[in-house]
Structures are given as structure tokens and as C-alpha cells.
């Protein structure tokens, strides 16, 4: 599904990713764990196509196709979804308007017919119910005045609606209390499917109690320094990142 080869990335001349390689297969849930400043968020932004990040070497392949030359919306249309660590507020833009615009923009670029409002409403309502998102929230401007937990649930709702092939969850657990965490994780788990891959980026092992990963990667100093099974996350929880940080340095 996703293949990253020897990725080097700089921001304003500063090296952030330093020869990172990573493969995520269809159906797989891969976790990336790492200390602050290891480049986790940069990785998610670069894969999603945020500009201001200079890729100095390497490749990112989505289903075998190099996506580096595509802009963010083209990557989204190809099935890439990023659940933001800090979802952005867009004043004045109604949540429903936004959902409809996004979904239909993607469908249009894939050559699919646009979804009509009643059908869209139905899908949104169903997803909203599962995620305990109130109708009132759907009526407000996108993310404006939402609490941290509400914003994260809205991200999952969008993911459910857009049905991506690869979903990157950037620190989705940050700022969530235990109830919100459970709802979000359930939302993710119901979307697990054999044709869909997840890349779950997190600092803490806690989230992985709810979203069981198939693979755990440890990231430090801009590359993957160790790969293992779920047990690796537990080990990290116990011993911290100290060993890996010094090793990478």
C-alpha cells in the first residue's frame, strides 16, 4: 500500500527525516512510536503533501505510484487520509458544506458521480451516531468552537465518510480523555478492512491498547530504528526511548 524509500526531508535547511524507509501493506495497522522531535509529524505531513517540506532524496509510493509530485488534493483523491493532530478551524464554513465539498471533489477527480445531499446526509448521520457526534455539531462551522475531543471525533467521521485506502493518524490520542479515546478507537476499528491500511503515529503506548497494531516501528532522529510486533510497544512503555535516542545519535 505505502512504501517509503530512503526519505530525506529538510525544513528551512534543517534536516528532519534522514533516510527513512517504511512499508505498510494493505490491511495492516502499523504504529510508529517515537520521542518528541523524532520527526513523526513531519512524516505525516510529507506523506500527505504539505508544502514547505523539502524532499531532498527518496520516494513515497502509494499503491506503487510515486506521489511526491502530486499536491495534497491529488493524494487525497487517491485515497490518502491524514487525521490531524490539531484539526483546523474554518470559520463560516458549515460542517456539512465542507463534508459535501470534500467528498464530491474526490469523487469528481476519480471520475465518479457526485453524491446527492440526501444520500450524503444519511451517511453522515450514521457515522455521527456511531461517533457520538451531535446534530448540533454538524450544524456549526467546521471545528469552530469544538472541544479537543470533538475535533478528533470529527476527523474520524471524515475518515469514515471518505473511505480512504491509507489513513494516517497523527497523535490522534493527544488531548483525549479516556472516554473520547475509546470512541475514537472504536471508530477506527470498525473501519479496519483488508484493503485498507493504517499508520498510527503516537507518543504513548496507551492508544495501542485500543487500536491493536500488527507492526510497531520505532522512530528516532528522522528514521526507523527498530521494527517489531505489538510487544515492542510494551517494551517502550517500560523502558522509554532512551536507548533508541542514544543509538540513533
Amino acid at each position, binding site marked *: 500500500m505505502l512504501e517509503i524509500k530512503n526519505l530525506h526531508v529538510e525544513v528551512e535547511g534543517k534536516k528532519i527525516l534522514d533516510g527513512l524507509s517504511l512499508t505498510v501493506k494493505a490491511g495492516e495497522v502499523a504504529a510508529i512510536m517515537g520521542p518528541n522531535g523524532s520527526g513523526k509529524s513531519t512524516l505525516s505531513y510529507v506523506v500527505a*503533501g*504539505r508544502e514547505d517540506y523539502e524532499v531532498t532524496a527518496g520516494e513515497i509510493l502509494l499503491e506503487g505510484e510515486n506521489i511526491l509530485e502530486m499536491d495534497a*488534493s491529488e493524494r487525497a483523491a487517491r485515497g490518502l487520509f491524514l487525521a*490531524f493532530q490539531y*484539526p483546523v478551524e*474554518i470559520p*463560516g*464554513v458549515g460542517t456539512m458544506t465542507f463534508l459535501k465539498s*470534500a467528498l464530491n471533489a474526490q469523487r469528481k*477527480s476519480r471520475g465518479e458521480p457526485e453524491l446527492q445531499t440526501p444520500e450524503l446526509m444519511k451517511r453522515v448521520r450514521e457515522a455521527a451516531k456511531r461517533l457520538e457526534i451531535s446534530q448540533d455539531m454538524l450544524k456549526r462551522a467546521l471545528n469552530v468552537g469544538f472541544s479537543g475531543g470533538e475535533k478528533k471525533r470529527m476527523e474520524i467521521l471524515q475518515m469514515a465518510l471518505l473511505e480512504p485506502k491509507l489513513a494516517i493518524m497523527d497523535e490522534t490520542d493527544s488531548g483525549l480523555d479516556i472516554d473520547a479515546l475509546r470512541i475514537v478507537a472504536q471508530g477506527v476499528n470498525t473501519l479496519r478492512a483488508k484493503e485498507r491500511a493504517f499508520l498510527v503515529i503516537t507518543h504513548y503506548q496507551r492508544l495501542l491498547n485500543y487500536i491493536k497494531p500488527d507492526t510497531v516501528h520505532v522512530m528516532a532522529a528522522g528514521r526507523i530504528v527498530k521494527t517489531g510486533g505489538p510487544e515492542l510497544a510494551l517494551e517502550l512503555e517500560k523502558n522509554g526511548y532512551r536507548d533508541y535516542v542514544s543509538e540513533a545519535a
Partner: protein
Amino acid sequence: MPAVRETVETVRSIDVDAYKYGFVTDIESDKAPKGLREDTVRFISAKKNEPAWLTEWRLDAYRRWLTMREPTWARVDYPPIAYQELYYYSAPKSTEGPRSLAEVDPELLRTYEKLGIPLREQEVLAGVQNARVAVDAVFDSVSVVTTFKEELAKAGVIFCPISEAVQNHPELVPKYLGSVVPVTDNFYATLNSAVFSDGSFVYIPPGVRCPMELSTYFRINEQNTGQFERTLIIADKGSYVSYLEGCTAPKRDENQLHAAVVELIALEDAEIKYSTVQNWYPGDAEGRGGIYNFVTKRGDCREARAKISWTQVETGSAITWKYPSCILRGDESRGEFYSIAISNGRQQVDSGTKMIHLGKNTTSRIISKGIAAGRSENTYRGQVSAHRRASGARNFTNCDSLLIGDRCGAHTVPYIEARNHSAVFEHEATTSKISEDQLFYCMQRGLSGEEATALIVNGFVRDVLQQLPMEFAVEAQKLIAVSLEGSVG
């Protein structure tokens, strides 16, 4: 910020020539001789068969105009206007005589059809059920047709060209004409008083809620012709009216002058809602051509609890000089001003409002959204003033500006004047650009840079769009996307 840069590039490369109302109607017209003299004023007055008092009123204005100078305080820049090179009157020949839909020149009907204006009484606006809108269509210097007149008359509402009102309503016109914008008000208003040709007249009798939206559609067609329309709306005690004006003009390389005057009078407990979607030809990307839109619009809340609300969506014109204002004379009267002003290419906008608090416990509200792109200059200029005896005056002002690209300017010039200690005025303003975070977020969800920009801008102006009558809000929203992106479908 590459994403923004890209949007900026897109906006820059806009073919401002994408203006879709830029066609010319080929129709024979009857013009006054070029230039402006007393004779011209007499010619116009005679054409309209006006009573002596009005001819004198015009001549008085003309004489005063000769002693006046063009205002220079606005942040707009244009070469001197050769007033003697303009035509001050132009009328399609075929419209002389009685006017009914059946008699209107088919060429004119086709023109309005192309503009999307329904000059039919049996149909509704596309996609909106049960929306009936009465239209007064003004073509250059004359009104060519007014629809739904009979039905409105049943409710007691008078909706007709002002030239007709002058003939038929001597009890109203002399009493109210010039009572809000005096003859000597300013250079352009005085010029208008001398040469005004047509425009709409509305009277809503006491206690009547006007049964449908009223609208006037202004079209400048003829070359080297100024349009000087005059609109007068009177809402008698306890009445309500919602009125909308729209405007377009052909693409021409020369600038054309449009100096209108609009006067609103709201009596006790009456409410007037006045909306404008201004889409005059803005000129091409290099700033050639386009309308000089120098208009004076003022509403007088003359009696207690009167309410006047201005909503404007300004996307056209090479230069806009326009300050729809409210005089809050009646106690507890209320004024509102909601504005979206978008400038692109080389457009210059200097627009805003005046809220003059004179009565007791008067309130006003100003929401202004300015968007500057390309090489345009966009200025909000607004005055809020409470006079000595205006106890309990309240104002809230919010003006936000958005810049798209680094070659345009956005300016905010408020004048906040409290001469009464019980006034409470709050003013806030911000200027920023579309945030990179918002753009990226939208693009990550699949929207292209252009779509994302349009979506965010529409969110930015939403508070104002909501003030428009529903039938026009959708139209305005599209217009905003078009004026920013040039992506005419």
C-alpha cells in the same frame, strides 16, 4: 508558502475578461447632445415632461455643481473625468410610449434574459420555489419595463420608474425627493440631481408588508454615456419592504461614469431592507475600462423605531466610491450595514458607511468583509457618530480584511465619534491572509487549491451573505467565486 503562492498565481492569471455580462446590445438610441450645459438639463427635463418645480430643482443643482470640486479624500486614483465629453441622456428609441411587457422591444427582453433577469410575471427564479420578484429594468437612462405592477397596486404598493412617479404622485415625490440627500450634498450627488434620468420609486403604505421582493436591474449599454439613476423608497408607518438592485455593463475600453443617488425614508416602525449586488464591468486585467461607481446612498430613519438595513456585495466596477449610510433620527431607530467588497485586477474600492446617531437609544451594527487580490486596493471607510443629544447610542463594528497575494492593499479607516457620554461604541478590525493551515487541511480532504480558497473565502463572508434575501444569496456566492477565480463555468 507554496500553496498560497499557487493560489495567488491563479488569481493573478485570472482573465478579468471573464466578465460574462460584457456584451453590447445593438439597439438604436435617442441621446442628448454630448456635454453638460443648462440646455442639457432642460433637455432631460423636457424629455420627461417634468413639472416646472423639478426643472428648477435640476437647474439649481446644476448651478451649484459648477461651483463644486470633486472630492479627493478617498483612496482612489483616476485621471480627470472629461464631463463635457459624456452623454447625459440615452434611451432606447423603441421604448417611447406606453410600456407593458408585450410592447417591450424583443431585443431588450433578450438582453435581460442573457443577464438572467426574469422580465416575466408568471415564472419564478430558477430553482427557488414561490419566489416572486418584481423587477424594474433600467436600460441606460430609462426604465424599460416594470413587472407585477398591478398585483403590487392591489396591496397599495407603488413600484414604478421615478419619472412616472413624478407625473403620477405629486403628493409624494416633491415631499421626499432630496430630503435625505440634499441637492448640495456632494459633487456627484449634485451632478445626479441635475441630470438624473431614471430609477425606481417605491412607496409602501402604512402597515403594509410588501408581498414580494422588489428589485431594480440597472444596465449601462451605450458608449460614453453616464448613468445617473435616482431611487427613492418610502416606507410609511409600520410597513416593510425588501428591495434589491443589480447592475452590469458591457466591456469597453473607456471608463464609464455611474453616479447614482438612493434615498430611503423609513417612518415610524417601518423597515427597509436594501440589498445590492454590484457587478459593473470592472475593467480588464491591466485596468483598462470599467465603471466609475460614485454613488450616494443614504437612509433616513425619520421616526421612532424605524429600521434600515443595507447589504452590499461589491465585486464589480473599476472604482467604487460608496458609503450607504443611516441617519438614526427617530428614537430607538436602528441602522445596519453588511458589506462584502471584493477587489481583483486593478480595481479600487473605497467603501463603507456612516451611522449618524441623533435620536435617543439608537443602535447600529456594521459588518464589513473586504477581500483584496491581484493588484487591487480595498479600503473600508466608516463613520460612527453620536451627537450631543443621542443618549444611549450603541454601535458594534466588525471589519475584517483578507489579502490574497502581496501586490494588493487592504485598508481600514474608521472614524468613531462620541459626543454623548452614554454612547457605547465597540469597534474591532483585523487584517490577515488565508491561513496556510486551512488551505492544507482542505486540500488534504481533496479540494483543489482554488476550491479551497473559494470555500474559505465564502466562510469568511458568511455573516454578510446570510443577510441577503435567499434568492440572491446563492447567486452572490457564485459571483464571489467567479470574481476571485475567473472560473466562469
